[in-house]
C-alpha cells in the first residue's frame, strides 16, 4: 500500500507540538472538573432536596447529550447569547470541565457512599461540624476510594479532548489533519496522531495500575 513516512517527516515536530496542547486541555479540565464534580457530589449526598435535585438534573443533562454538541453549543452559541466572543481555549475548557464534572461527581458520590458509616458517627460523636467532617474525614477517604476511576476519567478526557479540533483547537489531531490536507496524504499523519494518543493513554493506564497496586498493599 506504500506507506511513505518520509514525506511527512519534516511535519512531525509540528504534530508533536500538539502534545502539550492536548495535555493542557486534559489536565486543566480535569482539575476544574474534579473540584466542580466534588461540589456536585456534596450536593447529591446533602439533605437539602433542592440541591440534590439540581445536581442530579445537571448530571443527567451532561451525560445525556453528546459532548460534541455541548462543545459546539458553548463555542458558537455563547457570542449570540451573551455577546462574549469566547475563545477556542475557553470553550474547550468550559465544555470538558462541565462534562467531566458530571461523570466525576458520580464517582465521588459512590466513593463517599463507600466510606464506612462509622466514620460519620465517630465525627458526629466528637462534635465535628458537617462541613469539617466532609472536608477532613469523609472526602479524603472518598478520594482514595475513587483514585483508580479518576485516572480512567482522565483517559477518557484525554481522548475526548480531540473534539477540540472540530472548532479549530491546534491539538494533536488537528495538527495531523492539517499536515494531511497540506501534503494530501492521510494515512501517515493520522497514524502518527493515533500512536501519540495511544502512548499517552498507556502512560496513564500504567499510572492507574500503580495506584491500584499501592492502594491494595496499604
Amino acid at each position, binding site marked *: 500500500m506504500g506507506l511513505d513516512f518520509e514525506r511527512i517527516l519534516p511535519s512531525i515536530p509540528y504534530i508533536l507540538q500538539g502534545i502539550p496542547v492536548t495535555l493542557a486541555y486534559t489536565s486543566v479540565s480535569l482539575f476544574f472538573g474534579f473540584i466542580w464534580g466534588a461540589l456536585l457530589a456534596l450536593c447529591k449526598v446533602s439533605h437539602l432536596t433542592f440541591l440534590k435535585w439540581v445536581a442530579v438534573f445537571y448530571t443527567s443533562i451532561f451525560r445525556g447529550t453528546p459532548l460534541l454538541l455541548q462543545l459546539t453549543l458553548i463555542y458558537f452559541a455563547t457570542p449570540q447569547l451573551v455577546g462574549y466572543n469566547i475563545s477556542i481555549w475557553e470553550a474547550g475548557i468550559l465544555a470538558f470541565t462541565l462534562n467531566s464534572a458530571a461523570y466525576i461527581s458520580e464517582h465521588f458520590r459512590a466513593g463517599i457512599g463507600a466510606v464506612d458509616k*462509622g466514620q460519620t*458517627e465517630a465525627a458526629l460523636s*466528637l*462534635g*465535628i461540624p458537617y462541613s*469539617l467532617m466532609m472536608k*477532613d474525614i469523609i472526602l479524603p*477517604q472518598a478520594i482514595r476510594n475513587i483514585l483508580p476511576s479518576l485516572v480512567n476519567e482522565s483517559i477518557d478526557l484525554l481522548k475526548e479532548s480531540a473534539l477540540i479540533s472540530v472548532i479549530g483547537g491546534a491539538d494533536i489531531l488537528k495538527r495531523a489533519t492539517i499536515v494531511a490536507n497540506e501534503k494530501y496524504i492521510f494515512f501517515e499523519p493520522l497514524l502518527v496522531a493515533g500512536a501519540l494518543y495511544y502512548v499517552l493513554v498507556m502512560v496513564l493506564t500504567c499510572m492507574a495500575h500503580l495506584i491500584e497496586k499501592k492502594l491494595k498493599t*496499604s
Partner: protein
Amino acid sequence: MIRLENIHKFFGSHEVLKGISGEISQGEVLAIIGPSGSGKSTLIRTINLLDPPTSGKIYIDGTCITEGSVDVGKIRTKMGMVFQQFNLFPHMTTLENVAYAPIKVKKLPRQEALNLGKILLQKVGLEDKEKTYPPQLSGGQKQRAAIARALAMEPEAILFDEPTSSLDPEMVKEVLNVMKGLAHTGITMIVVTHEMGFAREVADRVWFLDAGQLIEDSPSHTFFREPRTRRAYEFLEKVL
C-alpha cells in the same frame, strides 16, 4: 447528670425501646447489660442522639436535648463515644486522631492539643504509636487510641458501645484495664457490655435490659448476688 424520660425508639414499625426512664449521676459507672437484641446499643446511641429517640425526653445537666433548639454538636462534645468497631480515622496518625477534634472543634492551639494528645496516648499505653496509622494497630491498640480520642475532648461522660466485643480474647484485658483506670476519676461512664466481670467489679450500677425494656436497675453488687427479676436471674445463669 443524664436523665431519660420514657424513651421510645422505632425502626420502621419495629419498636426497639419501649419506654425507658432512668437517671445517671455525675461520676457514676453504669453497665448496661442484657441479651442480644434487647436494645442496649440503641439506648446508648439515643443518649448522644446518633439515633434520636422517636419519643421521650433526654436531659443533660438539666437541659433537654431532645427539643429542636439545642446545639447537638455542643452536647456531643460533652459526651465522648467509644464504638465497637473503633472508627478511628484511617488517614490520620494515632496522634492526629486524638488531637484533631480539640484543634478543630475546641479551637485549642495546635501545639497544646498535640501535647494533650501525647499525654493521653501515654495514659492508654500508646506513647510509642503516635505516628502509626490505625490500620497498623492491633484491635486492642485501636480501641485504646479511640478511648484517648474520646478523652481528648475532656467530656463529662463517655459512652462505651460494646468496646471489647470485636476484640480477640487476649486483647480484651488491655482495654478493660484502661477503662478501669478511668472509672471513679470523676468522669461518668456508661458501658454497654457483655463483660460480666467488668460490670461486677467496676460498675456502680447495672441496668438490665430485655426486649426494649429496662427491667432492672440495681447497684451492681446486689444485681449479681441477688437479681430481683426472674428474667435477669435466668440471664445471669446462662452467662456466668
